[in-house]
């Protein structure tokens, strides 16, 4: 099965950064348990990675796989936008409950 490759870019340990990580982990555990790899990159420590990924606004979640590459910007508090951004839009009707495979 295809794994989701995700990278979350944050700057330092701001409230927004923590919020974004929390929101993302919650959704992934719920919807993508065992099917994703998540890396968290602090731009202050690795500016080159941000340069390579062309990150302007943070927090920024980059979905590297599956293709095409998608970028979700913000603290990921807008759940439907995050779900859509991760490409999980087909599951949108069962956001509340049972886990299902795509």
């Amino acid at each position, binding site marked *: 099965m295809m794994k989701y490759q995700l990278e979350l870019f944050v700057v330092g340990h701001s409230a927004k950064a923590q919020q974004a990580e929390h929101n993302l982990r919650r959704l992934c555990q719920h919807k993508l348990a065992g099917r994703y790899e998540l890396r968290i990159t602090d*731009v202050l420590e690795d500016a080159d990675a941000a340069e390579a990924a*062309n990150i*302007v606004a943070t927090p920024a979640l980059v979905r590297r796989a599956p293709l095409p*590459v998608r970028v979700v910007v913000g*603290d990921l508090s807008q759940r439907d*936008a995050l779900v859509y*951004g991760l490409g999980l839009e087909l599951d949108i009707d069962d956001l509340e409950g049972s886990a299902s495979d795509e």
Partner: protein
Amino acid sequence: MSDARMGIEKLSTGMSGFDTVGFGGLPKGRSTLIAGTAGSAKTVFAMQFLVKGVELGEHGVFVTFEETPADLRRNMLSLGWNCAQLEEERKLAFVDASPRPEEERIEAGPFDFAALVARIEACVRRINAKRVVLDSIGAMFAQFKDPAAVRKELYRISAALKQMDVTAIVTSERTDDYGPISRHGMEEFVADNVILLRNTLEEEKRRRTIEILKFRGTDHQKGEFPFVVSDEGVVVIPLSSIQLRQKSTTLRIASGSSELDAMCGGGFFRDSIILCSGATGTGKTLMVTAFMAGGIAQGERCLAFCFEESRQQFFRNAAGWGFDFEQLEKDGKLKVVTDYPEIMPLENHLIRMKKIIAEFKPNRVAIDSLSALERNSTTRSFREFVISLTAFVKDQEMAGLFTSTTPTLLGGTSVTEAHISSICDSIILLRYVEVYGEMRRALTVLKMRGSAHDKEIREFNIDGSGMHVGKAFRNVTGILAGNPMQLAIAPEELDRLHEMFPHD
């Protein structure tokens, strides 16, 4: 150059002409907004700021929001700026914030530009940059939904730039050359300094100007100044900076005609501008030819710009009067530049002529004719051209002979003269005189600054050996008015009138 009284230091941009208009350059350590419509040369201006900085030992970071670095590298090569090489030498670096069309971007909550600030900071540190460009921030509004959020975040960048101790240029789009400063109210973003670049259409001709709208806390020249984008980038023409500080000399040079020298009280002054005005065929080009030949005979270097004739015509005519200009040019004593005035805008002619003059370093410069150049310009840009060129020629302590063609055969002045007559030191008029059914030529020295001169209107002949100034038209009046009339006065009476007021 610092403005000690105001406490704000200026940073020399190294850009030709701009530092003069900005009284030393851009306010150092601050951000300056450059606003302009599409195609107003904002990006070229911004990149030139960095490239010139490198020449002055200051490294630069280019943050691009619109074009990709690859596009920028390619576009700037045409101006001779090798970005890739400068990047390799760690003197220039790009921060790429341009949109990637292949990536979809979704907004899911509040965000900030802290990552961009961190990237800029890292880049500035890495190459020890002193100059930063953000081009163009308007593009950020297209990338994000909420303009208020973008504006707030751009303000964060502005504050961060101040902390970094860099001098920055921030470009922004305008929709109208004479409308609001920028599309998204960005003047608040960098409210300290605002420069406007304009690219307007005037009398069917494109005219680029630069205006410093404000430099907070420090001074600059006011108003619009023309500029061109030449093969070396933006060249600003700082007109009002031209000062009347030329040294004055009493050294005389030969005009190329001993009779004319005598009329001028012993020749032209060495660093003077002479205007020669006349209708077509009155002998202006011959005057130029004699002026060139006269200079070369004294071992001077001469440069002629011909906008009315081809090289071959000019050389053939000179050969007819016994001058081998082709050979003299081969010997490096003479340089003849011929062009159609229409090949480029007048501002570009000016830049090019200055460049040729600076390279050839002549003692004498001739332009045949100014009125041909006038065809190709608006009244305003022509006046600016004449002022700028004459100041440049005088500043180099050269003698300049400019010709001007009058529109009417008899008498008359041209618009050209209205613009130049107060600037030139001497004016020579060549006129046709109709005498008993015959067209004859007349010459008079109308003005000769700083010297006594012959005030007579004399007959002027052209033959195979060149020009000859003869006797005064004693019994004709109204030549300059274009209405010559023969006087039926006895020669004795004329002599008596002539003696009544002794010559000075």
